[in-house]
């Protein structure tokens, strides 16, 4: 089985400031890291690899220094890595990003399974995964919290909907995006770091793609016009309940059940 995991390099802290004049994230001097949701995607792939003969490829789109997260994917157990890097990709919105990734992924044939993190911690759109699947014309399931079954033909998963959990079975090749409750990602291994030190990371540019029309990439291929970027207001919503112990316990139980922390 071939699995491709889409990963992205994001700022290392959640407290990134936005330049008020340009609306651009101030990334200078800030460490970067692999998008935390992608760790769950990578972990899902590596757990499958431990059960079936599987080849796991990590793919990212970004500047050359994004090689760092491919190296980290190697340290977690990925076999191959690809960076899609080209000045002509700069300024991509979610649609252009998804299109670029779909071109990169499809270059050597569509893998059996594509796994993405549900969203990134910098963009937070949760759109790139499903859009990749649409461009590749394969089924997709978003917000997967559990893989129930996987064969060479199909995958059966639990999809976390706002009010319910749906069990979905789709044919392969397919794409899933995974939520944070799906697993506890392993830590990068120093042994694998030593073992993968000489392993190359494949670099692809627009010239390697089947669609070489520059108008479909980067700023040209991005219908989204950003008017303003600003940090969302900090969410400190809270409620205070009053009542007897029994009432409060009952209400708390209802709330926790509703939010699916408890199973009835």
């Amino acid at each position, binding site marked *: 089985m071939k699995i491709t995991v889409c990963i992205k390099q994001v700022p*290392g802290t959640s407290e990134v400031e936005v330049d008020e004049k340009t609306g651009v994230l101030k990334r200078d001097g800030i*460490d970067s*890291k692999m998008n935390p949701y992608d760790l769950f995607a990578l972990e899902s792939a590596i757990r499958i690899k431990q059960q079936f003969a599987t080849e796991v490829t990590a793919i990212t789109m970004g500047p050359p220094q994004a090689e760092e997260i491919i190296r980290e994917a190697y340290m977690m157990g990925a076999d191959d890595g690809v960076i899609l890097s080209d000045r002509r990709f700069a300024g991509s919105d979610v649609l252009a990003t998804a299109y670029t990734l779909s071109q990169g992924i499809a270059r050597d044939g569509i893998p059996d399974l594509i796994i993405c993190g549900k969203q990134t911690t910098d963009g937070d759109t949760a759109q790139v995964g499903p859009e990749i699947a649409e461009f590749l014309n394969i089924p997709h399931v978003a917000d997967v919290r559990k893989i129930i079954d996987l064969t060479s033909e199909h995958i059966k998963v639990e999809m976390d909907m706002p009010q319910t959990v749906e069990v979905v079975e789709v044919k392969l090749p397919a794409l899933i995006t995974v939520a944070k409750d799906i697993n*506890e990602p392993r*830590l*990068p*291994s*120093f*042994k694998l770091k030593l073992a993968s030190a000489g392993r190359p990371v494949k670099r692809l540019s627009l010239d390697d793609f089947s669609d070489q029309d520059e108008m479909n990439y980067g700023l040209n291929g991005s219908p989204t016009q950003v008017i303003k970027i600003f940090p969302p207001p900090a969410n400190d919503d809270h409620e205070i309940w009053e009542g007897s112990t029994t009432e409060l316990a009952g209400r708390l139980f209802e709330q926790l059940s509703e939010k699916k922390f408890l199973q009835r």
Partner: protein
Amino acid sequence: MNYKQIASADIDFLVSVCGTDRVYTGKAINEDFSHDELGGVSRMPDVMVEVTSTEEVSAIMKYAYDNNIPVTPRGQGTGLVGASVAMHGGIMLNMCRMNHFLELDEDNLTLTLEPGVLLMEISKFVEERDLFYPPDPGEKSATIGGNINTNAGGMRAVKYGVTRDYVRGLEVVMPDGTVMELGGKVVKNSSGYSLKDMIVGSEGTLAIITKAILKLLPLPQKTISLLIPFPELEMAIETVPKIIKSKAIPTAIEFMERDVILAAEEFLGKKFPDNTSDAYLLLTFDGNSKEEIEKAYEKVAHICLDSGALDVFISNTQERHAAIWSARGAFLEAIKASTTEMDECDVVVPRKHVGEFVKFTRQLQDRFNIRIMSFGHAGDGNLHIYVLRDQLDEQTWKQKLHDVFEVMYSHALELGGKVSGEHGIGFAKKPYLNDSMGEYGINLLRNIKLAFDPKNILNPGKVC
């Protein structure tokens, strides 16, 4: 000891100082104030007072001194040896409302604060300002006053030392109500006996801390933790002296066993990043650049692999640190939740004997047929060993606990160890301190106590 029993006139006095809202008697005192975190020792105070200023503490101490009433100061009650339990009743001074930051002096790199500020509040306050208070005990909801009184150590002691090393000055109220300033903002001080250092670790028996001046450091910009699985605990612990000998200076070297990790997973309902091996070392490195830290940790990673480690896992982001350290922080609670009752031994031995001592306690498990769990600071020789009661009846439990502790403490002593590394003596460990200090030593401690507190009214029955 003959103390005056609390009468209504005494309550009236306390109310005249603090008002009715902050003076509690009888059933109005929460049961929690009768014991500490471990709960082995218990007694209710006759009256509990929430103090808010040095002046109030001084007025109450003067009154207690004149009237011969015992006084027990207390912070969050997260201690483990009964030091904050009012063994002779009397007045309990709850210091938790004295919880203000008073001054951040960036010219002298000091922080002046009241004793009721919590450890987690300190780290947040200083780290937001790119400063660092290194002592890092596991219990983050403890007060700084409690930490100073036990000379708490914590995980970063390997590189940064313990609480004592970060206390520059103290304001204290003496048992007769006199207010004293000890130490100060000065870096050096050779002016007579260091009274400030006598207060540090005195468990509320010599004076009441009402203000502290802490030394701060610049905040290291980067941190990396290594989680290192080993096929067995002995192999893990035997690696520690090699790490120390290599002259690499991790901030922390902790050891943990699979059983404790599983207990923490169950307690938190959260998976640890790895639980497939029998034993782990957890190391942390800090520094100001990624390159600097990588250089330091790679050397140590190779030492571990050469010593039989199965791998070396790297934690380099907030999320990864959180996955590891939230479990590490829950070990005590998790072990507690896995049994009916427990008691702990907080011995410290010279670092090269840590392995031998842990091996020894494992043998005791079979020899006395009782469950013993441990984790601890392998890098500084301080162990936290928990003896678990499980289903034993009261009498068997007391007997076995006594026997196991006797053997453990005397073996620690043979290895050049001490009774307590960071939790203190309080009430529960007095016999062991007595055995280890000898008559001359204990008399010396008692005479120091009398010099500070001639009427023995301040936290009586503790330490010596």
